[in-house]
Structures are given as structure tokens and as C-alpha cells.
């Protein structure tokens, strides 16, 4: 089992995720992610301590009960390709190690874009947003939220609630001037916003 302590944050705006989340405190966070994943580094400035463990180190997580403010599962499709049981176990463990009010963040590739972003793509590796939300609810998380991530899963230039009006106005604001972009608000308005964004994220609180 390996636990890697993060001390030198790379400069990536994706760490601003933390401003949208509401963990009870900002003392300790744990990121479950494959090697080379940047999320632990970019959220490090927001917490006194951030650690990362690999996807194989979750049974159990090497953390005492009720010790963390945030658990982030980054790139779910890389952590456990198609294994919903892995997600169930990871969320159960997250629930154990989070304090009251603690927050879990799960990021993953939108299945509609998976062919482009997932190495060794195959339909069996896909996890839908609905399924992740169901797993969060099943693990006892409340106050659920879900977002799209643009322009690609790791670079969160836009973090957009999965609500029709939010996607319509995001598209009107961000894509008005380009030729193809002119059709994106229409796609969002027609309710097909799930087609537009490569990344997804779900959030749950205890």
C-alpha cells in the first residue's frame, strides 16, 4: 500500500474546484487517483494536508475513521474500468473516513466522449452520471450535486451544473462567436446538454 504526500502543487486552475465545494473544514483531504493524476497537487494549497492513494489501495483506505474533510475520486474510468463494485467500496470507505458534513467528489469522463478520452476505450468501461449519483445516495451521501466539466475532464475551465438553464447560458456566454458554437446553445436548449461536455463530476455530502 502506498500513500504519497503532496507538497509541491503544480499550477493548474483545476484546484479552484475547492471553491465550489463546502467541506466542513479545510484541514485534510485524500485523493484516490491513478498515478500522474494532477488533482491532489492542485487542491493541495487549500488544505493543511493532502494525500493521494492509488485505486488499488481502497480496501480499506489507510486512514482512521472520521479524519478527513474531503475525499476526491479522480478519473473514475481509470481507477476502476467498469467495476461498479469498486465505486461502491470506495464510497463506503469514504463515508467511514469523512467527518460529519464531509464531502466526496467523483470526476469521470462523460460516456458520450469516452472514445476520445479513455485509453483502451470500450463500452464496458463507462459509468453514467445517474449511476454515480445512485451509488452516492446508496452509500448514505446526501445533498447531491452534479456538474459537467469543459473543455476536457482534467482542465476545468468551466464547471457547469447539470441544469438546462445553466448549460444554455454557459453556451451563450462562451461560444457565441464561433461558427459551430452557434449551435451549442440550441443543443442545450433542446435538453441534449449531456452531449456537449467531455467531463462529469458528482458531489455528495454526509
Amino acid at each position, binding site marked *: 500500500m502506498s500513500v504519497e504526500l503532496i507538497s509541491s502543487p503544480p499550477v493548474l486552475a483545476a484546484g479552484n474546484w475547492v471553491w465550489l465545494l463546502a467541506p466542513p473544514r479545510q484541514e485534510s483531504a485524500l485523493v484516490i487517483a491513478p498515478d500522474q493524476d494532477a488533482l491532489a497537487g492542485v487542491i493541495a494549497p487549500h488544505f493543511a494536508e493532502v494525500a493521494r492513494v492509488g485505486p488499488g489501495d481502497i480496501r480499506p483506505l489507510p486512514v482512521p475513521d472520521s479524519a478527513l474533510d474531503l475525499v476526491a475520486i479522480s478519473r473514475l474510468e481509470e481507477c476502476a474500468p467498469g467495476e461498479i463494485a469498486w465505486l461502491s467500496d470506495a464510497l463506503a470507505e469514504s463515508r467511514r473516513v469523512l467527518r460529519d458534513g464531509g464531502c466526496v467528489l467523483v470526476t469521470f469522463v462523460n460516456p458520450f466522449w469516452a472514445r476520445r478520452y479513455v485509453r483502451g476505450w470500450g463500452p464496458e468501461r463507462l459509468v453514467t452520471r445517474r449511476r454515480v449519483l445512485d451509488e452516492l445516495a446508496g452509500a448514505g451521501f446526501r445533498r447531491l450535486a452534479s456538474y459537467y466539466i469543459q473543455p476536457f475532464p482534467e482542465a*476545468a*475551465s468551466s464547471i*457547469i451544473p447539470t441544469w438546462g438553464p445553466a448549460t444554455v447560458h454557459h453556451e451563450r456566454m462562451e461560444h457565441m462567436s464561433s461558427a459551430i458554437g452557434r449551435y451549442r446553445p440550441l443543443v442545450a436548449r433542446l435538453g441534449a446538454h449531456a452531449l456537449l461536455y467531455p467531463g462529469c463530476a458528482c458531489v455528495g455530502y454526509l
Partner: protein
Amino acid sequence: MNQALATALDAALHQLGDALPSDWRRIVMIKNDGPIPVPRHDVIGDAARGFNLLVLSDAGEPAYYVRCRDSRDTTAAREAEVLRRLSESPDIRPHLPESAGIRADGIQVLATRYMDGQLFAHLLRKMSQDEWRDAVLELTALATAIGRVGQAGLPELARAEPFDFWREGEESLALLPMSSEQIAATAAALRAGGTAPPFPQHGDLWPGNVIREKGVWRLLDFDLFGRVEAPLFDACHLTFTSTEYLLSGGHGLDTPWIRHLEGHDILGRGGREVLRQNAVAQGLSADQAVGGLVYYLVEATARLLRKGAQPDVWRGPLTETAAAADLLRSGADVRKVLFPELLRGPA
């Protein structure tokens, strides 16, 4: 939402007569370009860093646009203060964004009530050249009025010494990849401009920073206000960029702007009229007006080079500066071509 951001945003929205939404779906993060906090090795004060939020109403319509920056970022704090002080003038308040700035633990926000108008950049697509001229005259007069309020209401902006076109432009000119003859002609025009009374400019007055809402012009983005004090800068920038939007939708000009300015059509006469009216309003002679025009071209190009912009971004402004330099070194008296009325002196 994180407690510090929630506190700051709630206080800012409270100042605008509203409150923080409780529904997570109403907050969209956009233009997430730089981490907050800014890492130690990065430069604080770069207005491009941080992220913005679009806050939607209960009904799902845009309600506020919120710029979020590191609490140590002096640029964002300055803009909030500039807008607060300028808004004290009842005459220009209707033309400013309705904003509130708040600083909290590690972050500061500048919330602006969403304006449901049309960008000047979009209006230009359907405007006639006569309408374009009238709009640019109105807008530059408005920018001058705001500059006057800034002079009076923001005494810290007032610089003691006059604006010296050559001294201020020399360093920027050295950055431009032009021929030695073009550099020499440009330098001579800057030197001939001498000095002029400094005048606070908006600093980025282009069609994307102007909205027409219910028949009223509103200017956006005051982060550079007063940082540029070169007379005529706003008038040149808006006339040039709006000409570009009018003719090509913002995709560059086939004929250099300076050549359009020489012309006898509405674009030429209208453009000269805008520059002349602004030169008169800012008390400039013909030499100073030419100095202001040349300074604008040099500085606008150098700004892009300093930012490390891609060649396809700075090539257009560089072509404009080089065309002006070619006109200057052709022996033509640019003062007579562009500002004959100023040579005759006050009526």
C-alpha cells in the same frame, strides 16, 4: 460553496440588493484560468488569473457576473474601488456596470449585475456607416466624460508631470519588429508630439466592452481605467476596433486603418471627426494628436507582444503601426491629412 467565497459573494450580492443563492445549480464557474490562491512564484496583480462565476436567478436567467481573484490581487480591488468612486457621479452612473466588490479570507469578488443588452460588437454587424460614426462619437464623448469624473474623483490617478509621448512610447517601440526606417519615422512622430496633459482613459474601449441596454450605452471592464493616461488612446482604440467589426466582424482589415482614415468616404470622414473631437476635448494640438495616434498604435501592438500573444493576434496591429510609419516616412504631412482643423487653431 466554500465558506470564504460564500461570505464574500453573499456580502457583494447583498450590496446589490440580493442574497446568495442556496441552490447549487445557480452557480456556473467559467473562465477558470488561474489558481486561487496564486502560487508564490506567480505575479499577483495579473487580471487574467482566477475564475468567474455566472449566477443565475431562480428562473434560470443570468443575474450576476462575478469575477473572483486572489485577495492579494491589487487589480481586482482597484477596479472595485474605481467603479465605486465613479458611480458617485449621477451623470455617469447609468453608463457604468452596477458592481460590488468584497474581500474575504483568501479571495475577493467583484459582482456585477448582468446586463441584458446587446454588445456593440454584435450591433455593428447590422449598422450603417452613418450609424457607426454617430455611435463612436457618442461613446468616445462618454469615455471623455468618465475620464473627467475620474480626474476629479480619483485624485490618486492624477499624475503631476505631463504625458511625454516619446518617453512613454520608446520602450514599446523598441519591441516592434519593424524596419529601421519605420522605427525612425515612428520615433520622430512621437518626439514631435512632445508632451500633453495626461487624461485618464478606459484603457480597453473596444466593441466587446460596450453594451447597449434599453437605449443606454454601458461600458464594461474598468480594470485598466486610469492606468493608461495617453490622450486620445480610447478614441483611437474604439475607432480602429469598431471599424474592424463594422467591415469584417472583427477579423482584420484588408486596407490598413490609417488608409481608411485618409479617405473621403464616411469611414474616413467619420473616423477623422471622432479623433478631432476627442483631440479638441482633451486640448491637443495637431502634433500632439498625431503623437497620440502613433503612441496608441505602438502601445497596442507592444501590449500584445508583452503578453506573449500568438503571431496571428499581434500581426494585425503591427501591420497597422507599420502602415502608419510608412505614411509618416512618405513625407506626407499627417497633421494636414488627419487634423487640418487643429492646424488652424481654435475657431
